[in-house]
């Protein structure tokens, strides 16, 4: 059910995004950092689902809050002539890797357990 929703909504989003107008170059940097932040939130959400402590309020607030904060920091960095967005990218991508490794371990453990159970049944 939840995977179906995600897939359908993703396809809808792709179609919508294809038909939206492009943005100017000076704003694409902000959008990029917002996308990284949102992706980080999504992977964090998946991890929390697997850990069974998923909270929709935390997920939504993190999704928008992180994106907006990252954009604001990028803006501030531009004003200060410091590439603050690099710090945001490092933090978000680092967290994405951590979350991905947690997800990977979870599924590997799950599958290996299933595999062993099957082996036991066979024998």
């Amino acid at each position, binding site marked *: *059910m*939840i995977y179906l*929703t*995600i897939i*359908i*909504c*993703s396809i*809808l*989003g*792709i179609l*919508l*995004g*294809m038909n*939206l107008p*492009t*943005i*100017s*170059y000076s704003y*694409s940097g902000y*959008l*990029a950092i*917002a*996308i990284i932040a*949102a*992706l980080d939130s*999504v992977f964090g959400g998946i991890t929390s689902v697997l850990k069974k402590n998923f909270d*929709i309020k935390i*997920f*939504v607030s993190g*999704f928008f809050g992180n994106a907006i904060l990252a954009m604001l920091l990028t803006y501030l960095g531009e004003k200060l002539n410091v590439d603050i967005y690099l710090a945001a990218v490092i933090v978000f991508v680092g967290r994405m890797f951590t979350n991905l490794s947690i997800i990977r371990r979870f599924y590997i453990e799950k599958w290996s357990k299933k595999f062993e159970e099957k082996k036991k049944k066979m024998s």
Partner: protein
Amino acid sequence: MKGKIIMLITIGIICALLTSVMFVQFKSVQVIEESGVGAMLEAELRSEYSEIKEKNAEIEEQIEETQKSIDEYNKLSTDDQGARELLREDVTDAEMDLGYTDVKGPGLIITLSDGNNAANNDDEVVKYYDLLLAINELKYAGAEAISINDERYVTSSYIASIQNMYMVMNGQRITSPYTIKVIGDAKYLESVINIKGGLSDQMKSYNKNISYTVENEIRINKYENLIEINYGE
């Protein structure tokens, strides 16, 4: 049940939002790269901008310096002693231009004289227009001072032919041979005289005599008369 539906809708909206924004970004990046208006261009513009800024600052500095020197001149000119000196310099320059001072310098001594058969053939006599042509060409070559038979050629000078019998310059009668002393760059003067169809060729084509010597130091006397200005203001 209700909570689950809300959750599903929220996750769906977020997924749609994320993917749509991502694709907008993909498209924008592609357009930017295709049109070449990419990061390269922005960086180029930035460097160019800073270069222009630097140049601007330099020019501003120059303007400031020039302004300073202008101020100095102004100060000097309000200062009595300085004003006198400036004026004296101006006056000597003007006198040299007008021909009111003796001038020394390198140049040529040109001699024009009537042809050998001048008594019988009027064409071989040096005419006033020959002298005017010579003066004009010498001035073209950058002559700074000219005299004919030691009569200084100045702005008000004239060479006139009186009844085709004799020539008058600055009110004085001048006769052949005509010695033209000219101060200036000897090389230029020489080349202008010898240029094809120039003074030398024209003289020789009528059998008039022309010769010149290059001198390291010529002395040209000042103009003795007064230049009177009655009508101009």
